[in-house]
């Protein structure tokens, strides 16, 4: 059995495509067998909704009269600093940026109540944002100061561009020390007091396409409540990570760079997020459709939480000190049951990634495809696989000579 994306698109156009979520497909394949399921189902939809720090947005705010060159100057959006090393009125806002006067961890643990992720959420919600800028004057761009409200409706472009999202597997974070620690994986209680994980497991996009057989550069996706695209493999993409017999990575592996027009996204799928004692970020909703081109591709989408193992890492010592040690592996089925066994201790679990929201995303994408509103795209280039030899390298520090 083989199908092409063009054939599936034809069915979508006719309203005849059979679409199920990556959760639903598990039981269907169990009941009907992989072969028959692959014939009957055209698309499997996935979803994930978690904090993704390597997110941000480019804006072109339009030219003021007289003109101002923000490139090389300083621009703030609601007091959050933006990146201004590009052209006159293009700016970039990163999800983790925080106001200059935020106390950070001076009063430990810092609260980080407002940052770049929150500005993105408010902008997408249609709220006015305060832009304040100072720069130097030139003959063609004489103005040195600008203070104005901006709104996503009025600016030329607002482009979400996230350099690393949708991690294929992730650490389970614990704390072996005797004091509370505040991490990007949440508040970790001492002496294995809790374990935090952060993927949607069986619904997560790259767990359902472990070898990147259908997801590639140009794949159209659900992004932040609207439509986006896979732009590249994400930073720290590590296709050579340790994998199980089922092909599923047992460590952090593949990642995606995604892009999309922020103007058609929704604030409930791009949520400004604060990690106590760590910083600000953006929780991003992503859903990737998987065209069922063959039995093999269908089989990958039947992966369930019990088949996915994640490494347990101590965030009080091993993680900060870049030690490779792990405390063992646990399955997502156990993590989701609420307790896992680590070093002979029964440890309660919590998640940073929302499974109910991931389910909702997979459901929305399914509906879009069923209703003929969302056609699939052919990738224009594959993501690097294990054969690329790409690995995730640590920094080799070298002394700077005189």
């Amino acid at each position: 059995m083989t199908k092409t994306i063009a054939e599936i698109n034809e069915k979508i156009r006719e309203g005849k495509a059979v679409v199920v979520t990556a959760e639903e497909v598990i039981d269907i394949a169990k009941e009907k067998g992989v072969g028959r399921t692959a014939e009957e189902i055209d698309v499997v939809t996935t979803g994930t909704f978690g904090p993704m720090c390597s997110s941000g947005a480019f804006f072109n705010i339009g030219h003021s009269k007289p003109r101002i060159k923000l490139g090389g100057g300083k621009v703030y959006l609601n007091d959050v600093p933006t990146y201004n090393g590009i052209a006159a009125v293009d700016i970039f806002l990163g999800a983790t940026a925080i106001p200059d006067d935020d106390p950070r961890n001076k009063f430990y643990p810092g609260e980080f109540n407002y940052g770049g992720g929150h500005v993105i959420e408010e902008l997408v919600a249609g709220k006015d944002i305060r832009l304040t800028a100072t720069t130097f004057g030139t003959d063609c761009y004489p103005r040195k100061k600008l203070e104005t409200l901006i709104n996503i409706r009025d600016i030329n472009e607002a482009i979400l561009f996230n350099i690393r999202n949708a991690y294929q597997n992730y650490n389970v974070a614990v704390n072996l020390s005797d004091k509370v620690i505040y991490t990007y994986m949440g508040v970790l209680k001492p002496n294995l007091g809790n374990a935090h994980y952060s993927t949607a497991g069986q619904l997560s996009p790259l767990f359902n396409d472990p070898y990147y057989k259908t997801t590639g550069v140009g794949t159209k996706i659900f992004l932040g409540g609207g439509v986006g695209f896979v732009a590249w493999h994400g930073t720290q993409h590590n296709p050579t990570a340790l994998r199980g017999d089922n092909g599923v990575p047992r460590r952090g592996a593949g990642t995606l760079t995604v892009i999309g027009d922020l103007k058609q996204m929704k604030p409930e799928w791009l949520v400004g997020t604060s990690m106590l004692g760590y910083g600000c970020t953006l929780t991003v909703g992503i859903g990737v459709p998987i065209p069922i081109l063959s039995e093999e591709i269908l089989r990958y989408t039947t992966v369930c939480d019990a088949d996915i193992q994640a490494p347990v890492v101590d965030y009080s010592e091993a993680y900060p000190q870049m030690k490779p040690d792990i405390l063992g592996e646990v399955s997502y089925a156990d993590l989701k049951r609420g307790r896992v066994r680590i070093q002979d201790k029964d440890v309660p679990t919590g998640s940073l990634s929302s499974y109910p929201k991931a389910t909702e995303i997979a459901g929305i994408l399914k509906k879009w495809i069923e209703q003929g509103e969302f056609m699939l795209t052919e990738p224009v280039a594959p993501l690097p696989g294990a054969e690329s030899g790409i690995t995730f390298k640590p920094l080799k520090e070298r002394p700077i000579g005189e």
Partner: protein
Amino acid sequence: MLHFPPNITGQPVVYRLVKDFDLTFNLLKASVSPGEEGLLVMELSGNEKDYDKGVKFLTEAGVRIQSLSQDVIRDESRCTHCGACITICPTEAFSLEPRTRKVLFDHNKCVVCGLCVKACPPRAMILHF
């Protein structure tokens, strides 16, 4: 609210408050297990001098005293049901609905300690004074 360090959860602290300092208490919520940090939420009243002595006794015994605000509520429009609060809550006021995996908040179990307020990534838990 009284936070008990694990080493004194076995001691009859409340009994001493009544017996030695003549204080009246109204126990609202309790979560005390041997060998773990314990929590007691109570109204405590009595003669001002006795009350101050009682508080001094508690502090010297290693008990941390936290006066409570009135209520913690959840802003349903901001909660993403991630679950970062579940293991943080000392009284297990949060639980997972097994079928939908939504995070349930049992207001009756909440002792208004406020730990979830800052630990909640989208800041959906709000202290009401």
